[in-house]
């Protein structure tokens, strides 16, 4: 392997046309934030996919671990009363 220093990895988030939140679209290599935005524009918005770009260095993202899946997410699965369909409303009451 060469001694050349690899450019850091950045994660790219794009806001689409229609008022949606920024969404993760992929990653790329760049030397700094300004360069990352320029590259993101070329790599991820060649077809009008976005109106705004966020970039963040991949190493700065904190993520939950796959082994935490149970403790984190299972408690929600038996709380079906958090969904509107849990409640039966008679048709006579009209649209709700």
């Amino acid at each position, binding site marked *: *392997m*060469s001694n*050349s*220093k*690899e*450019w850091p*990895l950045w994660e790219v988030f794009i806001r689409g046309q229609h008022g949606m939140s920024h969404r993760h*679209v*992929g*990653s*790329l*290599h760049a*030397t*700094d934030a300004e*360069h990352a935005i320029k590259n993101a524009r*070329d*790599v991820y918005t*060649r*077809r009008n996919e976005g109106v705004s770009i966020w970039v963040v260095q991949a190493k700065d993202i904190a*993520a939950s*671990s*796959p082994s935490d899946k149970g403790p984190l997410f299972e408690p929600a699965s038996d709380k079906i009363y958090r969904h509107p369909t849990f409640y039966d409303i008679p048709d006579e009451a009209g649209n709700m």
Partner: protein
Amino acid sequence: MYAQQVKSTGKKVVSLEEMSPADRDFQERINRGEKIEPKDYMPAAYRTNLIRQIGQHAHSEIVGQLPEGNWITRAPTLERKANLLAKVQDEAGHGLYLYCAAETLGVTRDEMFEMLHEGKMKYSSIFNYPTLTWADMGAVGWLVDGAAIMNQVPLQRTSYGPYARAMVRICKEESFHQRQGYHIMIKMAKEGTEDQKRMAQDALNRFWYPALMMFGPSDNDSVHSAQSMAWKIKMNTNDELRQKFVDETVPQAAYLGLTIPDENLQWNAETEQYDYSEPDWNEFHDVISGNGPCNTERLGARRKAWDDGAWVREAMMAHAEKKAQRKAALG
């Protein structure tokens, strides 16, 4: 196709009962259609195989720019030039999506480049054929991108999340590539002069069998398929996809008034598909092992771009570091 001959362990597929508990759990997730994500448990062989496959796929996109780049400055009109530039730029983008997907498996992009340049990783055999006339830009878009789409559409459902997501983006963009190629063929073969028709037929003659080779060796000789299919990193067999490609392409050639260079090509009413001649597999093995018409030239161009660009990569990094230091000093 873009990953034609991904070497695997070559061992037979292990049954669920014979697996370790972790591997069984992993296989059952795949069987249920769950996506595997970068930090999830995966068997070492799954990781290694995927790096080879995605890497080979990425390299094909990058090397695939070269045969078409050859014609950018000589495109017949400004519009065709703009089309071709956009297509080649897409190939660069596709390569980058795929390198990033591979990087989530713990290999770096520089390492993959170096393995390509040292001949330790492969790219699709198709890009080792020369593009001799403008009609080749039509044939490449129509046949090569057509074959690529055939292979990539099912890979959108592949088991590895980052790979599947990259494939979704790529498939969205790829259709334009095939259509612009077919459009060139229409102009030349249907609406062109006698000379242009001859050029279009000649391009089809030269690219037909290399395009069939893109799907990889015949199923009988493909030792790596079974495990990859169990892992859902390969969704169809090579022969299934090749057949599908032939069945879709034959009517397209007929529309253009071109003849597919295969005397044995005929509709089989019983199987409801076309019978066709297999490509010359000796040629395929020659090309993929480095002895095709353009292997030396293609790898040479890649190595030169990498070496000549080294000072730019280093200078940009040094500049960014200096800027960061200055900013830190200013508080």
